[in-house]
């Protein structure tokens, strides 16, 4: 292929760069039209009141509206009257920045329509459409920017694929290493499709279209994880990722069926006719009607469906249907975002090339799941949100502990991704929509940075094992210090209450909301401590990674000697991402610099907040109260959470320093001291073994039984049937052949032979006889001419 293959890289990179430029233009247009600040959380400003009342409205009016609503529609969500006075005060104080644009409009700005109808069967319409709000715009910029960096980086990282490649990890049966053609062009082809699919999910105007692109993302990850398909581990990992995702997708399809069966539409915003009027309200409008102040209620369609199903209590069954729909959609997100218990595929996905890992772990694939939870947020009931929070909490803790013992540099990062995804889900689950989305975006930047740094290291030393590295800081300073920035960002480093890296803002927001949630739901308070503990562990394993790789003396001299800084095309994206990892979430307003909510990114996200989610609401089935997110900005809560976060991160960091830098504590001794725990963590909580025992083996056993049945019964039957048929047909066939076909041919031959025999009697060979024949013939012709033809 040679250098001509570079064209593929240029085309793909150019395309994604163009995408980024266009996204940036779209963002500028958006800000130009709608401003940066959120325009609609007046509902939040006077929190506690679920009903939207204009701020000027009198107290009595408000309570009256509240009462009528409670009586008339029997809402499933009980608005919780919190301590109004205090809240409002602290709010006004702390949120001058985003109450400026408040009260102007009550509805989130969103543009939606359909472009093209794929399938139209009766009422079922599956369309390709768009739903654009501030979240979409922000996500587009983030995805295209990171993907552009990764594409540039990949042009350097994948250069080996330009020529023929000898894969030293694959040994053929003749003992030689596999020699194959380079797949540079194929790599970029998949990357482009991957980015396209992810952008498709983000822009999707209905949940069915989301599902289509969802599966496209799945297949792209399958291709890319299995890029080195000849390696057994890579093809197994690709299969694992694909199959585990299918498990989640089953749930998603159930959710889709529940939605379609009861609400009759897939559209987020609503189906429009040719004139642009909404002819069918969308999912969000049906679940959170505008006239009810966007409060969650069981939609009529679900109650009707419950009645059709013959439920005794339609309201209750309808609500269950809504829960099922929410859980189903979340199930898909669990698979795609690798949450417990479907997290097993993500660490194995490290088999792909490092740029793929960077893309999968930051901007695409796993982000898709979190994004969908965020997009679908208005549909989740508090019960579902609680489950989301629990799952997220388990994931973040479990993955963080596993990351402590991993020695493969990419695996550490993979488990850290799992852990951070857990944080996002957890944040969304405890009611922190903006916190979750903010963490999604900041995490995308620093995690892609970290992965690309690790790729740079792997590129230099040709191994993934951290115990073989060490001291690389002196050889590759740019990589080392950009990675340090990434590590600091991921642990949420910053000066409390003043300023910090991007992770500082998002992690503080999450912990603050978790604390807020814990204060309102004492039973679930433990989740806050788990999350805070997770932050300490995060700091520990990230700096363990950094110290083991870059600090100290080289552990393997020859690898150290061969190490070198990466080419410019590889470190330039690192620098760009490092810049964003520092500044992306920082407030732009100098006067309001210490207020995290003053950050333009936060304000943009606030603008995209789903209608009606900015208030407290509690569940009908479970005793859970979702506190509104603005409550967490309360000075007391925020300060407490911020201090705890800082303290935990610092303790984790110090522990890592003690063990791997100053060497005050010998890691080997600690390992032997906690040997059972170490083994438990080293084996990843024995999840793979557990799944092997409870799913894979029974499946294989069942498969063997089925195969035995197949061979023993079905094949036997078929075989004998075949024997009988063959016996019958051979006899019948012979009879037909011999009687009719051969018979006819023989008959014709026999007759021809007879005629020949008869005719040869004339041919006597006697000359004189022939003369007589001539004579007779002549006379006959004469007579014929004279008498026969004259008439």
């Amino acid at each position: 292929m040679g250098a001509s293959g570079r064209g593929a890289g240029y085309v793909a990179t150019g395309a994604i760069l163009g995408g980024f430029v266009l996204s940036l233009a779209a963002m500028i247009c958006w800000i130009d039209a709608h401003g940066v600040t959120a325009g609609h959380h007046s509902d939040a400003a006077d929190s506690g009141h679920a009903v939207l009342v204009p701020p000027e409205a009198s107290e009595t009016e408000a309570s009256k509206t509240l009462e009528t609503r409670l009586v008339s529609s029997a809402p499933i969500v009980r608005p919780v009257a919190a301590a109004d006075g205090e809240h409002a005060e602290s709010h006004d104080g702390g949120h001058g920045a985003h109450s400026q644009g408040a009260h102007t409009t009550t509805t989130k700005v969103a543009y939606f329509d359909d472009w093209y109808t794929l399938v139209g069967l009766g009422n079922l319409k599956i369309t390709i459409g768009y739903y654009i709000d501030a979240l979409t715009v922000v996500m587009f910029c983030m995805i295209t920017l990171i993907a552009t960096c990764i594409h540039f980086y990949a042009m350097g990282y994948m250069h080996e694929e330009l020529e023929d490649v000898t894969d030293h990890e694959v040994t053929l049966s003749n003992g030689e290493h596999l020699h194959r053609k380079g797949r540079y062009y194929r790599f970029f082809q998949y990357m482009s499709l991957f980015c396209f699919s992810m952008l498709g999910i983000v822009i999707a105007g209905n949940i069915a279209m989301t599902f289509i692109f969802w599966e496209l993302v799945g297949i792209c990850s399958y291709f890319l994880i299995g890029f080195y398909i000849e390696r057994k581990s890579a093809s197994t990992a690709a299969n694992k990722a694909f199959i585990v995702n299918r498990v989640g997708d089953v749930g998603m399809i159930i959710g889709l069926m529940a939605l379609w069966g009861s609400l009759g539409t897939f559209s987020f915003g609503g189906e429009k006719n040719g004139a642009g009027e909404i002819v069918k309200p969308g999912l969000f409008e049906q679940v959170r009607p505008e006239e009810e102040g966007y409060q969650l209620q069981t939609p009529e369609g679900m109650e009707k469906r419950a009645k059709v199903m013959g439920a005794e209590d339609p309201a209750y069954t309808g609500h269950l249907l809504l829960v099922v729909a929410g859980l189903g959609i979340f199930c898909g997100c669990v698979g795609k975002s690798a949450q417990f218990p479907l997290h097993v595929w993500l660490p194995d996905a490290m088999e792909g090339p490092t740029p793929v890992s960077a893309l999968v772990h930051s901007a695409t694939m796993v982000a898709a799941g979190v994004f969908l939870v965020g997009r679908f947020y208005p549909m989740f009931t508090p019960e579902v949100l609680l489950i989301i929070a629990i799952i997220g909490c388990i994931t973040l803790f479990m993955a963080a502990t596993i990351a402590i013992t991993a020695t493969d540099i990419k695996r550490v990062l993979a488990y850290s991704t799992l852990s951070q995804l857990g944080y996002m889900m957890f944040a969304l689950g405890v009611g922190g929509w903006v916190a979750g989305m903010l963490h999604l975006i900041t995490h995308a930047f620093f995690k892609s940075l970290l992965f690309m740094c690790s790729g740079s290291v792997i590129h230099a030393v040709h191994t993934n094992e951290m115990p073989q590295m060490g001291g690389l800081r002196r050889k590759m300073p740019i990589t080392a210090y950009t990675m340090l920035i990434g590590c600091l960002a991921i642990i949420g480093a910053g000066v409390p209450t003043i300023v910090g890296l991007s992770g500082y803002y998002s992690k503080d927001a999450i912990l603050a909301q978790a604390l807020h949630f814990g204060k309102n739901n004492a039973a679930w308070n433990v989740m806050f401590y788990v999350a805070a503990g997770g932050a300490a562990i995060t700091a520990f394993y990230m700096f363990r990674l950094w110290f083991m790789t870059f600090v100290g003396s080289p552990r393997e001299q020859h690898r150290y000697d061969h190490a070198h800084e990466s080419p410019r095309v590889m470190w330039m994206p690192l620098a760009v991402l490092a810049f964003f990892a520092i500044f992306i979430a920082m407030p732009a307003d100098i006067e309001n610099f210490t207020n995290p909510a003053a950050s333009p990114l936060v304000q943009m996200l606030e603008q995209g907040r789903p209608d009606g989610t900015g208030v407290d609401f509690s569940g009908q089935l479970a005793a859970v109260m979702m506190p509104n997110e603005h409550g967490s900005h309360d000075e007391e809560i925020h300060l407490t959470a911020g201090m705890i976060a800082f303290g935990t991160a610092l303790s984790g960091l110090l522990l890592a320093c003690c063990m791997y830098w100053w060497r005050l504590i010998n890691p080997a001794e600690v390992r032997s001291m906690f040997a059972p725990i170490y083994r438990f963590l080293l084996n990843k909580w024995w999840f793979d073994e557990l799944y092997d025992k409870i799913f894979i083996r029974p499946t294989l056993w069942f498969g063997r039984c089925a195969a035995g049945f197949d061979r023993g019964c079905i094949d036997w039957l078929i075989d004998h049937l075949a024997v009988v048929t063959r016996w019958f047909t051979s006899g019948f066939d012979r009879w037909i052949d011999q009687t009719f076909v051969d018979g006819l041919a023989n008959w014709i031959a026999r007759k021809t032979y007879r005629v020949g025999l008869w005719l040869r009697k004339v041919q006597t060979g006697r000359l004189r006889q022939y003369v007589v024949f001539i004579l007779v013939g002549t006379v006959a012709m004469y007579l014929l001419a004279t008498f026969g033809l004259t008439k």
Partner: protein
Amino acid sequence: MFLEAVDVFEKKDSKRKAMIDFLSQPVGLTHYLIVGAVMFVAGLVCMATKRNALGVLMGIELVLNGANLNFVAFGSGFLIRNPAYQLGLDGQIISLFVIVLAAAEAAIALAIVLNFYNNHSTVDVDRADELKG
């Protein structure tokens, strides 16, 4: 004319008279044709009856010459006055062709007969039936 002749034979009285009429006519086409027909028939009978190959060849010559005579007669401007019915020079040329043909044919046939004689020591055509079907 033929039917008249039959009448002549049936009616004994007019038989002699008609014969005399016929013979007393000047030599015309009919006479030629009669001579030609006699030669043709004689040739045919010769071919059919002779066992000697040379006899058969002679019969062939007779047949050909009988036909030649007809051609010449039809080509004659004296015998057929009406130009619309006469062959003219064509008849004479055809007869010339036939003569040449007969010569060539005789040469080949005599060669065959000679070879046949060499192989079988006879010229009996009845012995030459090896090519029968």
